[in-house]
Structure formats: C-alpha cells, structure tokens
C-alpha cells in the first residue's frame, strides 16, 4: 500500500481558530454508508474546499454540517460548533441553519421580488423594522456584489435575474441572516466563466467576515480560491491540509492521481 495507507498524517489539524469541526462523522442513506469516519476541522475566516469525484460524499458531508440531511440521511458522530454538538437531537436545527447558511448548486431564488427574497427570512426570524430590513438588503446585496446591478429594480421578480445574478442573490439571502459559516455546494458549476469569476471574487471578499466551506468539482477553482482543501474519495476523507500543500505535494497517491486529472 505504501503512500495509499491512509494514516492520520494525511489529515491535518489546522493550528488556527476553528469555526466548525466534525468528529468521526458517519452518514448512511438507509443501510448504505455514504461517509465514514470523517473528522475535519475548518478554520475561521478561511475558505476550505471539498474536492473529489462524483459520489465521493463531499456534498453529503457538506449538507450534514447544517443538518440539511435531516430526514434524508442518518448522520452519526459529533459536529462541534461553538463547543456545542449541533448533531444532537436536542439542538434547535433552525437556529443552526441561521448560523450556518447554505448556497446550492443551482440558483434557487424564491419566486418573489429581489427585495422579498432577502427580507422574507429576516421577517420569519422576527426582524420587522423597515429601516433595519432596508439596511440589511443593501448590505447583503453589496457584500454579494449585486447591489449596483439591482438597486433600481429591487421590486422586480428575482426570476428575471440571470443565473449568475440569481446565485449572488442566493448568497446575499444567506448572509443577510448574518451567519458565521457559509456552506456552498458547487455554487458556480451551473454558471458561465464570467459569472464564476464574479462569484469567486465575492467569496474572497466574504471570507474576511465569514468562514466558507465550498464543494467544487473544479480543481482550478479549489486551488485559486481556497486556503484549505479536503480530498474525498469513496466516502472517506483521504487528505486534508493547506491548499498549497495538497496541490503541490500531495501525500496520498490517490490524491495526486485525482488532482493531476487521472480519474474523476
């Protein structure tokens, strides 16, 4: 086996402030094990990329972090966030998702106005003041680099936006809730290169205030965007470390094969 022997030395523990950490996570779809024994610690205010082939479990892992797998899959193990195990049944899952936002692969704005897309969740969480709502709309749209494009059409339907704009609206919608952590599940895979680059610029800006974990199929994206990278293979975390190290001197054979494009 040699370098394929997946010892603990291939999984790095960052020596920084940790935003969220999983401890021995197993995920089952019915009796089918999709993730086994995944322990990863994600540093605060950094972008961490999850890479791997289709079916490697990276999206399943990401969705476990804010309990989006509830009712779909069984997640065992601990997910530590602010010294609480948020994978416990006692935890208020809606509060978890307020702190840990998520953006999906395909842009999914609500069939409402651009403004309403952002204010809807705020109102549901008890924020009603007109000034506060307007402030949050502007702040979040600015943060998502969408403000200049939509400031004159806030009351138009969000469905009239282009794919890239809609995706940035979804990012704005998430950060309007002022979360700690932003999970992104291949946010640019349905977008053209120009929109992709806008999203990446936005994310680089956002990491000053948010911890970002992003699933991506695109190796270039992972290498140019992220600070840390985890490589998933067949439901296991094979390697995790600083992106530079993963891409220049991977420790496991299989990581090297994947990043040099030999499979996946």
């Amino acid at each position, binding site marked *: 086996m040699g370098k394929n022997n997946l010892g603990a030395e291939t999984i790095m523990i960052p020596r920084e402030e940790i935003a969220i950490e999983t401890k021995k996570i197993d995920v089952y779809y019915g009796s089918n094990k999709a993730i086994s024994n995944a322990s990863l610690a994600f540093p605060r205010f950094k972008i961490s990329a999850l890479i791997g082939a289709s079916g490697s479990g990276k999206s399943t892992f990401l969705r476990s972090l804010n309990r*989006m797998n509830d009712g779909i899959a069984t997640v065992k193990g601990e997910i530590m966030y602010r010294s609480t195990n948020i994978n416990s049944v006692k935890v208020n899952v809606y509060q978890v*998702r*307020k702190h840990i936002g998520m953006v*999906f692969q395909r842009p999914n704005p609500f069939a409402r106005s651009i403004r309403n897309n952002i204010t*809807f969740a705020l109102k549901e969480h008890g924020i009603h003041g007109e000034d506060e709502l307007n402030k949050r709309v502007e702040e979040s749209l600015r943060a998502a680099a969408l403000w200049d494009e939509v400031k004159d059409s806030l009351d138009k339907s969000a469905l009239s936006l282009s794919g890239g704009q809609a995706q940035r609206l*979804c990012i704005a*919608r998430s950060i309007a809730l002022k979360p700690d952590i932003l999970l992104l599940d291949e946010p640019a895979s349905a977008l053209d290169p120009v929109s992709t680059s806008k999203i990446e610029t936005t994310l680089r800006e956002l990491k000053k205030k948010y911890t970002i974990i992003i699933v991506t199929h695109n190796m270039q994206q992972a290498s140019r965007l992220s600070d840390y990278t985890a490589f998933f293979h067949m439901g296991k975390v094979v390697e995790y470390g600083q992106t530079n190290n993963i891409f220049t001197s991977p420790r496991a054979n299989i990581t090297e094969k994947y990043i040099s494009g030999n499979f996946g």
Partner: protein
Amino acid sequence: MNAKTSNKVATAVIYSFVGIVVLLLFFLIGYILVNGIPYISWHFLTSPSQSFLAGGGIRDQLFNSIYLLILTLIISVPIALGSGIYLAEYAPDNVITKLIKTAIEVLSSLPSVVVGLFGYLLFVIKFGFGFSILTGAIALTFFNLPLLTRNIEESINDVPDLQREAGLSLGISRWRTMVKIVLPSALPGILTGIILSAGRAFGEAAALIYTSGQSAPIVNYSNFNIFSQSSFLNPMRPAETLAVHIWKLNTEGVTPDAHSISNGSSAVLIIVILLFNLGARVIGNAIYRKITSGRRG
C-alpha cells in the same frame, strides 16, 4: 417517406385532431348560447319559476346553484388543501399512503348518481337532514374532494424541491416554508383545479336530485337569519339548482314554455361557468403577481 414529409403529415394529423376538439366545443357552446340567449332577460333572471304557467324565471335556482357551490367550496377546499399538503409533503412512502391514494382514485371514479344516493340514504334519511342545501353540499364535497385533493397534491409536487431547500437552509421551518414559499408557487395550479371542480359542481345534477331536492320553495331574500325557515341563507331548506331545474323541465316540465326555459337556463349555466373561469383566473393571476412581483412563468 422522408423525414420532412412524415413530419408534415404528423403535424397535419395533430392539427386536425385539435381542430375537431375545438369545433365540437364551439358547436356545443354556440348551440346552447344561440338557442338560450334570446330567452334571457332581466325578468327571466329575477322572477321565480312557475309550475304550470308560462313566463317563469330562474331566480331561485340560480341563487341556489351559487349558494350551494359556495357552501361546497367552503367545506371541500380546506379538507382537500389539508390532505393534498399531507400527501405531497408529509406522507411517508408506505403501504398506508398507497392505500389512501388508491382510495382517492376509487372515490374519484364513483358515478355521481351513486354519490347522490349515498348522500340520500345517509344524510337525508339516516341523519334526518332532509332534502337540504347542506346535504347537497356534502354530496358535492364527496364528488369534488378526490379530484381537488389530487390536483392540490400535484400542484404542490410541481414546485421544485430547490425552493423547499432554500427555505430550510435559511432556518425556516418546514411548515413556514410550505405556507410562505411552496403554496404561493402552487397557487395558480391549485386555483385552476378549484375552478374546474367548481364548474363541475355547478353543472352537477345527478348527485343533487336526491340530496338538495327538486323543489325551490319561495324564500325571502331580505331575511338574513340563517336559522329562519324562510331565509334564503338557511342551509337546511331544500333547494333546486339550475342543473336540476334543467333536468326536471326536460323530464316532467308541464309549463308551456318548458323548452325555452330549459334553453335559457342552459345558456345561463354556461355563461356563469365561463364567468367563473375568467374571474378566478384574473384573481389568481393578480394574487400571484402580488406575491411574486412577476408574471406567471
């Protein structure tokens, strides 16, 4: 035959089938309107029907039809909405759910006259409600419920899962996501279903002959006490509807102008259903626009 010709032939065949459907529809509606409209007058719409003399109107029957329809919708829409939401969003994929769905399908294929007889035996006789608007509304609910439930379930299922995930990922509960995101998106489909079922209920006769009865007692349109026997709003009074009236005129009508009244009533029936369709669509679109700030996609 090359691809171009076969395509032309197929297109021509499809167009002619559509043409047949459209022609049939126009012929039917045109026939009813042409024969009926000349008889419609203000007097016809506002005077009570006559049993033996000519010159009777359809005031009570028209009101009864509308009142019965409203009552039916008040009973059936909430139930259908609840069960539709349950089946679309909450029902686990198991034997019981399949059983419920099969039961709904069986119920939807019940002949309306059977529904009417059932209503007669259970509500009119057993529960002693007598021939009444309420009994008629319950019978029509049985008749309506399966289609309405299926329609609501399908409209809700048509809303992409991505919308639900978006709601959940923002820390909004499943129920609030359902009420605030999914239902508004499903609203146009649900409204179409309600309109269609309302049209069916409005034109239904067989289920009502034995339930809401065949007599139109003289009622007082200024008596708003629903418990008063003479009030037009009393749900426990018998009420002949427009469709039942048409059926009765054509089977045992003894007035000299039975045929004209029947034609006029049919035209009114069709016009009301068309108006209902149009109105509900306009209202539905307006509501949808208000919620989504955009046109229907």
